[in-house]
């Protein structure tokens, strides 16, 4: 499935919705979406990943890039990753440094 990344900003929280397959050929699209939203004074970055069917390490590199842009005191939330995407996050230890949640509601979160 074709990769897509769309973003919105609600209450100083950037929300990027990812879908399809994230490999080295599609990672630049994800990276440019991160660059677009992290220009502003954000409090956190939320990645909706329920429809992301595949993620290679090129996606993990964008996570590192996002964290560097956001600053170490800001959290990255990963919402509802699929089982095998979560498997990759766990194998590489990235899950220790992300907030992985089943759902995220920007209107009720502080």
């Amino acid at each position: 499935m074709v990769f897509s990344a769309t973003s919105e900003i609600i209450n100083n929280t950037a929300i990027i919705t990812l879908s399809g397959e994230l490999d080295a050929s599609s990672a630049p699209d994800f990276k440019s979406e991160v660059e677009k939203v992290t220009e502003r004074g954000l409090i956190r970055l939320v990645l909706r990943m329920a429809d992301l069917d595949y993620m290679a390490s090129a996606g993990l590199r964008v996570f590192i890039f996002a964290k560097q842009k956001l600053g170490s005191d800001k959290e990255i939330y990963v919402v509802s990753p699929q089982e095998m995407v979560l498997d990759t996050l766990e194998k590489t230890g990235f899950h220790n440094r992300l907030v992985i949640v089943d759902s995220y509601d920007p209107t009720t979160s502080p």
Partner: protein
Amino acid sequence: MHPLTVPGTLDSLKAIANYVITVATEVGLDKKSIYRLRLAVDEVATNIILHGYQASGIQGNLQVNAAFDESKLEIVIEDTTPLYDPYQTEAQISAQDPSRPLEDRSLGGLGLYLAIHGVDQFSYERLGDQNRTIFVVHCAPATSQESVARTLQNPEHP
């Protein structure tokens, strides 16, 4: 299955993925094994394209071969990029502390780490001017699957 030959560009990743998924599905691997094998091959192909061909400014192809029997599926990627040593890179990433903050992580080696840990056997060899990266996934023998099925159907009479 006929080998797949594609140019050493990122646009070829989809074709390589489709090839691996098709073969692995035909062989009857489970979904998780298919995902991990596809990831492993994708990571190595990406490294060959970005660090082999593009970084050294040379053009070339990747050839992907598949061979299987009852016990295993073997995928081989052949390329003509300069010599590289996947084990050295893998050792570097393995030495990284997984609890390290993301912003301090090294960008290199993650893909190879996933490749090597995503299959049952990973090997690399240099043959003439070619690199050969070999991925092996063991298939569950049909007999043991049948006996599991029998056990489930007749739990009291395995």
